[in-house]
């Protein structure tokens, strides 16, 4: 499920939750895309495993949900709103900033 050429990548939260999502979905984030760029020599690119120390699992889960949601509706118009729990929104904003989504 990992490696530089695998179709899926693993995102790991600070508290150890692992989320496995398709590579192209994950690469919507500029940060993750650069992290995984196989032509660079960073260890994330080689293993396909990104440890995101900045976020707890709860936030990362929402991030992954958004990434998938984004991918699912990328060609649609009139996309339904995604459900964002208000208590997470500030942290999500920061995550979005960090990940360049």
């Amino acid at each position, binding site marked *: 499920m990992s490696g530089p050429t695998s179709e899926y990548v693993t995102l790991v939260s600070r508290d150890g939750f692992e989320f496995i999502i398709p590579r192209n979905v994950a690469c919507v984030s500029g940060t993750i895309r650069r*992290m995984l*760029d196989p032509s660079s020599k*960073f260890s994330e690119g080689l293993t396909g495993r990104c440890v995101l120390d900045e976020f707890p699992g709860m936030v990362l889960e929402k991030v992954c949900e958004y990434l998938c949601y984004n991918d699912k509706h990328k060609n649609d118009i009139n996309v339904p709103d995604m459900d964002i729990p208000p208590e997470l929104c500030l942290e999500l904003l920061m995550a979005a900033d960090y990940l360049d989504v």
Partner: protein
Amino acid sequence: MAAMRARHKIRAPKRGVSKKTEDFDSIWTDLSSFLTGINTKEYASLEYEDIYRLAYKIVLMMRAPDLYENVKQLEQNWLQTSVQAIVTDSISASLIRAEKSTDAQDQSSERREEGEKFLTALKVAWEDYQFGMGMVADVLLYMDRMVRSHDHPPIYVVCMSLFRDHILRSSIRPSSNLTVLDILESTILFMIQLERSGHLIERPLIRHCIQMLEGLYETLTEEESSKLYLTVFEPAFLNTSKEFYRAEGQRLLEIGDATTFCRLTTQRISEEQERCRFMLSTATEPKVLDLLDSELIRANIEEVVNLEGTGVRHMLDHHQLDGLRNVYVLNRRVDNKKSALTKAVQKRIVEMGKEVNASSILLPQAPAPAEKDDESEKKPEKAKDKEKPQNQQTVAAIRWVDDVLALKKKFDDIRANSFSSDQGIQASIGASFAEFINLNPRNSEYLSLFFDENLKKGIKGKTESEVDALLDNGITLLRYIKDKDLFESYYKKHLSRRLLMKRSASMDAERQMISKMKMEVGNQFTQRLESMFKDMTISEDLTANYKEYVARNGDPDQKPVDLEVNVLTSTMWPMEIMSNVKEGTVRLPCIFPREIDALKQSFERFYLDKHSGRKLSWQANMGTGDIRATFIRPNGKVQRYELNVSTHALIILLLFNDVPDGESLTFDDIKNRTLIPDHDLIRNLQSLAVAPKTRVLKKNPMSKDVKPTDAFSFNHEFHSPFVKVRIGVVSGGANKVENKDQRKDTEKKMNDERNGSIEAAIVRIMKQRKKLTHSQLMTETLSQLSARFVPDVNMIKRRIESLIDREYLERVSEEPPTYGYVA
């Protein structure tokens, strides 16, 4: 919504549990060690997330500008301390020396090796640096996003400019002014020079260095036009290329072989294309080709085309299609009109055309140089002698047309094969053909003779398409002839002979010919020719009707004589040519013997019954008759022959019916009793009494010429292997080239006709315009008439004068000269 949100408590973002102290300096220490790791390629320990987070933290501390400056400083130090040394060390002393001398050939192999070493070092340094900076820029993404808003270029761009300033623009030796860039440039140019002179070089290496130059910009804003490649290398490259190709052009010219020149040049072009595509930049391709075009081709093409012995002329003569194609392609590159090539081709066509013209004039004169006076005036006594050169002239005429056609075909071939059917060249080839064809004053006559010959004999046994092609060829030539009216009159003359004497091989072909001419030249042109055909058809009906008429109320006492009449409209047929009468002399109708006369009157009655008010005039010299003659041999045997003779000869022979055997008639007798014009009479007597195979009459004294004092008697010893004998008229019927007198005649008639056409055109124009200036009238008249002939300007002037005299026109004003139409 607001109320709902208010109920929930928003979680404050928790900071990660950081073990490190959160001040700028300590984070920077960590970060800079990572960045150095990138530079030294120690990637093993690098985790993107770590570095990114470090940078992120610094930016969150609002210290992004500091980070930016620090990174910049770090990379600059790195370049100055380690990379620069590697690069400058790779530059050997010989490269520096060589930089000063542009002569590529000295110590080429040494320099080449050194150069490759240097290029490799530079390439490796660049690639490593570029790759590292890619990673640095990636991890500092967050910082970039923050600082870009502050008018700073992205860190990657800054780092690239650092490389430019501290590696490429650095001096190679502390004491020297030369920079690495200078050496790079001269080395690459040297390599290219080597390749141009046929050596193999390390293309990918150069390609990488070029890519480096393409990836670096003069300014931080990275405009397309400020690429180092464009600002530094390309001009230098173009300069060297220019010099190289100027020298190359000289060198190739000195070789002095057009074929080689074209081949090598074509090769150079493709080499440069390839070079630009695989080694330099595609953007350079048009520039360097442009240069090549101007230096190598434009400067030299004219000389090449005209090279003695190998130039276009030589290629044309030896049918070197490939060579011509090369020349064409080269010439097209520099000149859309291909003027150099076109000029050469035109010149050659005209030359060859003149040769053809000359040979057609020379040929008839060569075998009969002694008979010069025959050429100048037609002496009736020598008619028989004349036949030879005249025949030869006919042959020459046909040969001329054939030659011209062959020439035309040759150039069409060349054009199709070598000049990719170029329109412009086609036009100019056409113009050249027109030029030399019109140089031959007898063009119309020759062409008409050509048609005549082919329609009489040439098309026998040929398929329809062959005939078609043949006629088409002729028509093509007709297109080039300026004086189409002259051609028309010749054609008419020849056609009338063919029709009346039934010499035409195929009426279909004749009709086809007419319709082709119609398409080519227009309705007006063929109108008269068509009406000639119509006359022939009407005459056929008429003859049939007359036969019926005779059968119904024919006189039983008459010996039945078959009559076939062609009634011709005198305005449509070239009467004056047929009747051989000079203007001004009154022509007496010849006296028909009573048998014929009765027939004639009977037909006239019949015809005038049908069409009252018309006048029939009999053209005896155009007809033929069949006569059954009885010869009594000395041994008493009777031998009968059917003689096919001309009408005149028929009349003459019928005279002898009334002459007792053994007695003779003198020339004057015959003349007085028949009133046949001298000229025709002589010819007919010649064929009856002189021609060895058809000697029906005896002449006394026996000689070739017919003199007024000669006496003629019936020759009972006439002998022939056939029962039917055809007795032709000497030098009469066949279509020959005209002699000078006839020519003058024709030209005179032509002039008269032209005068008429010009006047008609002028009056037409003026009737429509009422008032017109002189120059406008001229142009309009010329354009109206150009389809038929090219009138002489003086001729038009004289016509205008004459029209004014006759009060069709009037002078309206003098300044500018203007004419008005008088109704």
